[in-house]
Every structure is written in C-alpha cells, then in structure tokens.
C-alpha cells in the first residue's frame, strides 16, 4: 500500500475512532511524539522544538483504577440492590487486588534548547495520589460480624498511602549520539497532606466461649497510621488559599528524581525506559501518628454473686483492655516514599512510515 493511501485511510479511521469514544481516557503521554508532557514520563525524550511554553492550568489528568472489580459490578443499572452487588464484588476480590487514584494538574511547563545536544525544561504541577491494597479479610468482617465462629479476620499486610503535593521540577535531556538520549529531572516536593499505613498485622476473631456463649478477641494486633496535615481540632482555616500556600513550598519538603533513556537501535526500532518519582517526602508539619498493639479477649461480664466482695466489673473490663492493648499517639516526624513508576517501552516502525520519521528527525 502506498503511503498516500495509508494516510488517507488512517485519517478516516481516526475520525471514526474519535466519534466512537463516549468516555474520556487519560491521554498516555508516554512516547506521544512532540508533546512536551512526554518529558514528565521520560526525561530523555526528544523534543523537536527549540522552545515551548505550555500553561495547561486546567489540564487535569486523572487515573482511577482497580483490579478485581469494575464500576459496572457495583453500579450496573439493573434491579439487583446495590448492597448485594457490592457484596458479591467484594467476595470475588482477592488480597492481591488494589485501588489506585492519581490526579495531576500541570500549571506551567517551559522548555528551552540550550544547544544542539541539550534540552532544559522546568515547571510546576500539583498531584493527588491514593493507593490501597484490598483488605479482603476486614471487608468480610463488615458483612459477617461475629457470626462466623473460629474465622480469623486479619489485617496482615494491609497498606495504603494518600498524599497531595506540589512539584517543582527541572530536567535535562542530553542527546549523546544518534542512538542514545539520556535524561534526568530533579523534583522538589511541597506536601499538603499525607496519610499512610503499612506493616500491619493481627486479627480479630470470635470463638465459642468456655464461660459464655462466645469469646471475642484481638490477637497480635499491630496497626499503625501516620498522618501529616490531616488531623486538626477544627478545619475552618482549610481553604483553597491554604492549600495553594502548602502546594507552593510552605508544606512538607521532599526531593525526588526521574531518570530515563531512549535508544534508537535503527530507523525502525526504539527502546526506552524511565523511572519516575524516585523520591522521599519529609513529613514534619502537623504530624500525628497512631499505633494499636496487643492482645485481648473477653467472654463478657462474669457475675460472681459474692456480696462480701463486690466487684466493679465494667471497670475491671476496661482496665483489662487498657493493660492488654496499648494505644499510643505521638507527633514524631516520619518519611514517606513517593510511589515510584517504572516505564519500559519498545516500538517498531514499519519501513515506509519510518522514512517519514527519518526526514522529521534530520
């Protein structure tokens, strides 16, 4: 087929593609030729222009994802009650499933070719991240309560992290030779808030009791939650200007780096890779961390009917709980790692299209 034929029919195909879409998807800027935003995915990418200034401001990128469950599983427009649909979906999921939310709003991005081989770019964007693996066992506890005798509802390995931050970045793309590009981007983070929990363990259970009907317990529980910029006595002061100030360097500080390479094997084959957000945030503002540690079990209140030795049963129960389960709060600073993203890419271009690319590169 001739290139002219391909171009004509490709255009028609693209028209149909755009007409058939009724939902928005995040534009994957990785290897999106000539788009400056692709530098944020891989700092080594070629930029054809000598200078660019992009001011997206309202250009939001949104990624919402989950494994093991789809929106349709829960929100299908049918006669099945939503509680039933959600329960079935939850019981289908496994501990390996996870939830992800990422929102990114780029405010400004400027790039400038320093010389034939070096391209400098810098800018600022805001990012909101959430990741959580699926607490399958504890989710089942919501549905089963204490009705499943001898079942262990565990919180082992449950982890989540959420944060919002502003990112100032400056990057260098270096054209080594006709085959190799490398790039690096330095990031300065300013965190608005952070919340994370990891390395949790322990379980809740109900067994048949020896003295009463049931024995309820917490076993080897070690649960923690670290927050920064989340918990306050009141939230009247939280406003858009407060958030903007935190985004612009008055929040928690952190540093990160993106690294990338692009290899042009020949005119047809391109291989690239990058690692982004290899960074850390130092949470020092408005920090509150919580930990629950211990074992406890109870079969209820055992009455003794001994008038000579009256017992404050409820106080004993509370004391027993407080001695067995240690609940602590502190304001110690902590570190949180940014969610690292690893990108790998390979592209093979067929010969005739490649000639078109060749003329563009030269």
């Amino acid at each position, binding site marked *: *087929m001739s290139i002219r*034929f391909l171009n004509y*029919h490709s255009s*028609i*195909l693209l028209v*149909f*593609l755009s007409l*058939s879409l*009724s*939902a928005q998807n995040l534009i994957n800027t990785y290897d999106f030729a000539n788009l400056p935003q692709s530098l944020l995915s891989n700092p080594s990418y070629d930029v054809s222009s000598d200078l660019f200034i992009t001011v997206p401001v309202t250009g939001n990128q949104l990624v919402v994802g989950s494994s093991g469950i789809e*929106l*349709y599983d*829960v*929100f*299908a*427009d049918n006669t099945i*009650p*939503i*509680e039933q649909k*959600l329960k079935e979906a939850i019981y289908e999921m496994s501990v390996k499933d996870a939830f992800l939310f990422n929102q990114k709003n780029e405010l400004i991005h400027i790039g400038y070719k320093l010389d034939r081989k070096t391209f400098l770019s810098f800018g600022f964007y805001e990012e909101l991240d959430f990741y959580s693996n699926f607490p399958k066992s504890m989710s089942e*506890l*919501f*549905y*089963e*309560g*204490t*009705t499943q005798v001898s079942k262990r509802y565990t919180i082992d390995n449950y982890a989540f992290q959420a944060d919002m931050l502003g990112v100032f970045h400056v990057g260098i793309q270096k054209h080594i030779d006709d085959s190799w590009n490398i790039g690096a981007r330095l990031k300065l983070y300013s965190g608005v808030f952070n919340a994370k929990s990891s390395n949790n363990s322990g379980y809740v259970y109900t067994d048949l*009791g020896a*003295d*009463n*009907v*049931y*024995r*309820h317990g917490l076993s080897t529980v070690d649960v923690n939650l670290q927050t920064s910029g989340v918990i306050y006595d009141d939230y009247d002061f939280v406003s858009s200007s407060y958030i903007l100030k935190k985004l612009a360097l008055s929040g928690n500080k952190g540093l990160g780096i993106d690294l990338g390479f692009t290899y042009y094997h020949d005119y047809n084959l391109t291989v690239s890779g990058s690692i982004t957000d290899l960074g850390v945030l130092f949470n020092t503002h408005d920090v509150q961390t919580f930990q629950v540690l211990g074992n406890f079990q*109870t*079969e*209820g*209140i*055992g*009455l*003794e*009917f*001994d*008038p000579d030795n009256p017992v*404050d*049963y*409820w*106080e004993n129960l509370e004391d027993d709980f407080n001695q067995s389960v240690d609940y602590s709060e502190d304001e110690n600073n902590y570190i949180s790692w940014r969610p690292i993203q690893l990108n790998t890419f390979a592209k093979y271009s067929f010969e005739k299209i490649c000639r078109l690319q060749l003329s563009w590169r030269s």
Partner: protein
Amino acid sequence: MTRLKSASVLLILLIFTVSCIKDIDFDQIDDLTFATPLSVSFVYVEVDQSVFLDANNQEISHVIDESDIQIIDFLSHAEDNVITIVTYLTNTIDREFVIEYEFYDAQNQLVMISDSMLIQPNSTNLTYEMSYTYAQLENVTRVRTSIRMLPGVPLRPLLDRNLSIDSTINMNYEY
C-alpha cells in the same frame, strides 16, 4: 481486489474501535447501607448451691449482682431499632429459679425489668429471647441480674449442682 482487501482491513479495524458502554447508575450510592450482624457475649453466671445458703445454712431465696454497661451509644446503631438479648439457662439444682434483668439509669432509677425467665430443676439449655428498642435502653447505664429461688425441696450443698446463665446481645449494626 486490492480495494476490497483494503476495505476489509478497514472494516475489521473499525469493529475493534466500537465498544459497548454498559448502563450504570451512580445514584444508587444514595441507597447504600451496611448492616453488620453482631452477636456479642453479655453477662454470664456460674453459681453453685452455696450462693443460696448463708453462714448458718439458711436459704437465701433472692440474690443479685450488677454491673455498669457503657455501650448505649453503640446500641443506637441497631438496624430497625431492634436489640435482642438471648439468654441460655442450665440448672442442675433441685429447685426452680426465676431470673430477671433490671435496667437502671445513671441516677439509679429503675428504667425497666425484663420478662421473667423460669427454669425448672435439672433443665439444660433453655433459651429466652427478649427484644428491645433503643428508646427503651438509651438511658440505661447499669444492669442488675436478679435470681430468685422458688420454694421446693431443701438444698443439698454437698452435691455439686449449679445454675448457669449465658447471654448475648444480638443486633445488626447499621451504618
């Protein structure tokens, strides 16, 4: 032929570009409620015959013991406003007993008394279920368990006989 081949390729590609969007309704989230079924151990008693005898071996026909309970806020989440106390009785003593729960408020005023639970001599696993609304229990801060021994054959304290009371509070915790 070439044109037909090209058209076929385009048509096949076109088919793969068309997706079916399933109907979804996010407004269903307004109807979403959770109700966790809970059956939680409440009070338990294991007493032998000596509890019903004083130092002079005279019978004591009525014994009581009581405890604070501070779970009323928890009970306010009961689905359909129903809280059930289930009591399991076992009696190997040769007398009949009547067991009642008495509910008191913070000012030590009696709020209400449960139905009487009667257990015959040498009976096992007798079950009583009593349901209440949150409104009936919302001021309760103390529960007294009252055991009345009805007249009958004399007690034989040398024998290992006892009265056992196990109980649970059952409700669906709604949120």
